């Protein structure tokens, strides 16, 4: 357990990530310390190669840092056994990707419902919850449509619904408006803001200053270090 304040949902301590590009070591993160409060809408900005996506992957337990710790909801996720990671990922993290990453063969309902299967949620409950979150996203009429039959904005809303399905502690959104037009961008950011206002913690990685301006706090990464937050 960490000694952070109770409303701190995410804390990173001296987070470092180094990987080899051929024989050249690349220091993607060089000691990142940050804290995010419960219900906060935070954006992480910075130039390409500043370590934004690496930071998001480590927080999302998709990558293991070379050094340092990550605490989510009071649990040091960097210190748990590998076999515990999928369960923690289900319980603590919901991902929203730039390219939506929906499963093309499944309907909107199927894409949201599948996320709960791995949490061993009963089928009836899965369908009920998937309908609820999709309806919340304004997709009540598009439940049985496949991704290929939906617009980019609709697909991203399915992706957000999927991220919300398991009621995670944090939603990590990697360039969620990178693939949509400005009207849809406004809609997506509106949804994320609404979620945050409802108590859901949301962390967005973005290149778009317009998006960053609409978050509670902007964390700027430069060369793997937090320059401003």
């Amino acid at each position: 357990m960490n000694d952070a304040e109770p409303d701190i949902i995410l804390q990173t301590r001296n987070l470092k990530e180094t990987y080899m590009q051929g024989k050249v070591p690349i220091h993607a993160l060089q000691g990142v310390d940050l804290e995010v409060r419960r219900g906060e809408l935070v954006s992480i900005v910075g130039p390409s190669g500043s370590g934004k996506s690496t930071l998001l992957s480590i927080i999302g337990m998709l990558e293991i840092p070379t050094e340092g710790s990550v605490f989510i909801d009071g649990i040091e996720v960097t210190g748990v056994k590998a076999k515990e990671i999928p369960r923690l990922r289900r319980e603590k993290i919901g991902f929203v990707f730039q390219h939506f990453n929906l499963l093309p063969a499944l309907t909107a309902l199927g894409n949201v419902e599948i996320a709960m299967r791995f949490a061993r949620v009963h089928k009836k409950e899965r369908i009920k919850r998937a309908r609820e979150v999709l309806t919340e996203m304004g997709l009540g009429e598009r439940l049985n449509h496949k991704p290929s039959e939906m617009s980019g904005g609709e697909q991203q809303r399915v992706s957000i619904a999927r991220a919300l399905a398991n009621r995670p502690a944090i939603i990590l959104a990697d360039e969620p408006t990178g693939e949509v037009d400005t009207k849809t961008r406004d809609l997506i950011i509106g949804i994320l803001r609404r979620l945050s206002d409802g108590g859901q913690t949301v962390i967005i990685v973005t290149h778009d200053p317009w998006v960053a301006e609409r978050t509670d706090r902007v964390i700027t990464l430069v060369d793997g270090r937090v320059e401003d937050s």
Partner: protein
Amino acid sequence: MFDIILRNLSQRKIRTALTIFGIGLGIFAVIVMGSMSENFNQTFETSFALTADKIRVFGSSGVFGGSVTTSKAAEVRKVPGVHDAYGLLMAPLEEGGGMSFGGNQVIGLPPEKSNTVLGPVQVKEGRDLVRGDRYVTVIGSSIATQYDIGVGDRIEIQDKYFTVVGELEYTGSFFDASAAIPLDIAQDVYDMGNMVSMIFAIPEEGVDGDLLAKRIKLSVDGVDTLSPSELEEEAKQGLMIFSVITVSAAVLAAIIGGLSVMNTMLMSVMERTKEFGILKAMGAERRDILLMTVGEAAIMGLLGGLLGLACGWVAVFGINLWLAEKGIVLFLITPRLVAIAMLFAILLGTLSGIYPALRATGMSPMEALRYE
């Protein structure tokens, strides 16, 4: 999970169908070759069961090779522990026909022993041979079918006509393809003088067949014996070699089918790299990915097995129907064969899916998500 597996399989219909066809072809070979082997096994087992109490006595020049004279039967009969002994002449029914497994044969036997030799087999119609019979015969069911003859009809053996006086019921043994005629007539038409192919020695009740066989060998000059257990062992070795050859060929075909499953699954796993990344990001565990991937391979194995079984059954049924006109039964599909073939198909599919599944589970979720 089952619905996801089926969905994944139906996503690549042609590839899945071809893979199932590959497995099906292998299992088809297992069924056809295996049913041939099963038929020979059953024929032997039934034949053996019907003559299990008898010791074979041959000329000492070799088993199945050396003939003995009729008079030796009297010598064998005198050996303590022997209840009865009589000579038999075995010869091919058709001219130029060999004494091959499954071929038609003539059994020359003392008519008064007809009931003992053919005893285990019921006479379906007519009667056994009796003392005083000459150019008459009792035929097996396959000969009756093949020659389309019955009691009262005549059959030509070595240019002589024999009247059918009895027809045996079907047993699945060599008796089905046998025509029993009086021994002296057989020796005459086959120009064998007083020679017989072998002597059947029947032990007295409670006498051990193996020990008696040794005693006969020691007591009677110029003979060799084959006790029931020796006969069983020798025949089983022969059948084992046959089974190994036929089943190996079939298993090889099935393994090629299994490799096609592995190839399909490897391609499928590679194509779905990103999907596995997404599933892992959503919290899928190692066992979920394993179950999904191995499950697909196992279902392809199951469907391939069912396809091979159905095609094999149709082929075996068709060939048996065609051969029935010739009085031959070549294939026998047993529950044991079906169970082995299906288990083999599912195992083959499952095992072929394990390596691709391990590759899928071993992927780093981040790398999988970046895969294009």
